[in-house]
C-alpha cells in the first residue's frame, strides 16, 4: 500500500512538472498565472498522498496551507498582471 501511494505521488508530481514546464514556456502571462493554481491542486494531492504513505498526519496541514496560499498568490498575480496599470 505504501509503495502504491508513493508511486501515485510520484506520478502526480510528474504530471505537475510536465504541466509547469508547458505553462512557464508559453509566452502569455495568462498561462503563467495558472501555475499557482496548478500547485494548489497538484501539490495538495502530492502532500496528501505523502501524509498517508509516511503516516505523518501533520503533512495534511501543509497541504491546507498550500491550497490557501496558492489561491492567495493567484489573486496577487491577477492584481499585478500587465495591463492593469492604466486603471490605477
Amino acid at each position, binding site marked *: *500500500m505504501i509503495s*502504491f*501511494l508513493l508511486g*501515485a505521488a510520484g*506520478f*502526480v508530481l510528474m*504530471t*505537475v512538472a*510536465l*504541466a509547469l514546464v*508547458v*505553462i512557464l514556456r*508559453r*509566452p*502569455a502571462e*495568462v*498561462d503563467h*498565472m*495558472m501555475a499557482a*493554481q*496548478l500547485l*494548489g*491542486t*497538484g501539490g*495538495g*494531492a502530492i502532500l*496528501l*498522498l505523502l501524509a*498517508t504513505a509516511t503516516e505523518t*498526519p501533520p503533512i*495534511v496541514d501543509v*497541504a*491546507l496551507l498550500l*491550497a*490557501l496560499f*496558492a*489561491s492567495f498568490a*493567484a*489573486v496577487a*498575480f*491577477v492584481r499585478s*498582471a500587465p*495591463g492593469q496599470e492604466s486603471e490605477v
Partner: protein
Amino acid sequence: MNLALDIFTVSAVSAGALFFLAGTVGLLRFPDSLTRLHALTKVDNLGLGLVVLGLLPQTNGLFGALKLVSIWLLVQLSGAIVTQLIAGTVRRRGSNG
C-alpha cells in the same frame, strides 16, 4: 474488509492520478488560454477529489477525514473563483495567447 478498503483506495487514487494526467494533456493540447484554464481547473479538481476520496478509508479518525474533505472543498471553491478572475484578465485583454 481491510482488503476491500485497500482496493477502493487503489482504484480511486489511480483514477485521480489519471485525471491529473488528463489535465496535463489538456494543457498541452488545447489551443487557447481559456480552454487550457478549463482543463487545468476542472480536471485537476476532480483528480484531487478522487485522491481525497481514495485516502478517506486510510485516515484514522473522523477529524482527519473531515480535514481531507475540507481541503478539497477549499481548493474547489477558491480554484473556481481564481479561475474566473484569470479568465476575466484574458477577456479584457482580448488575447488568447
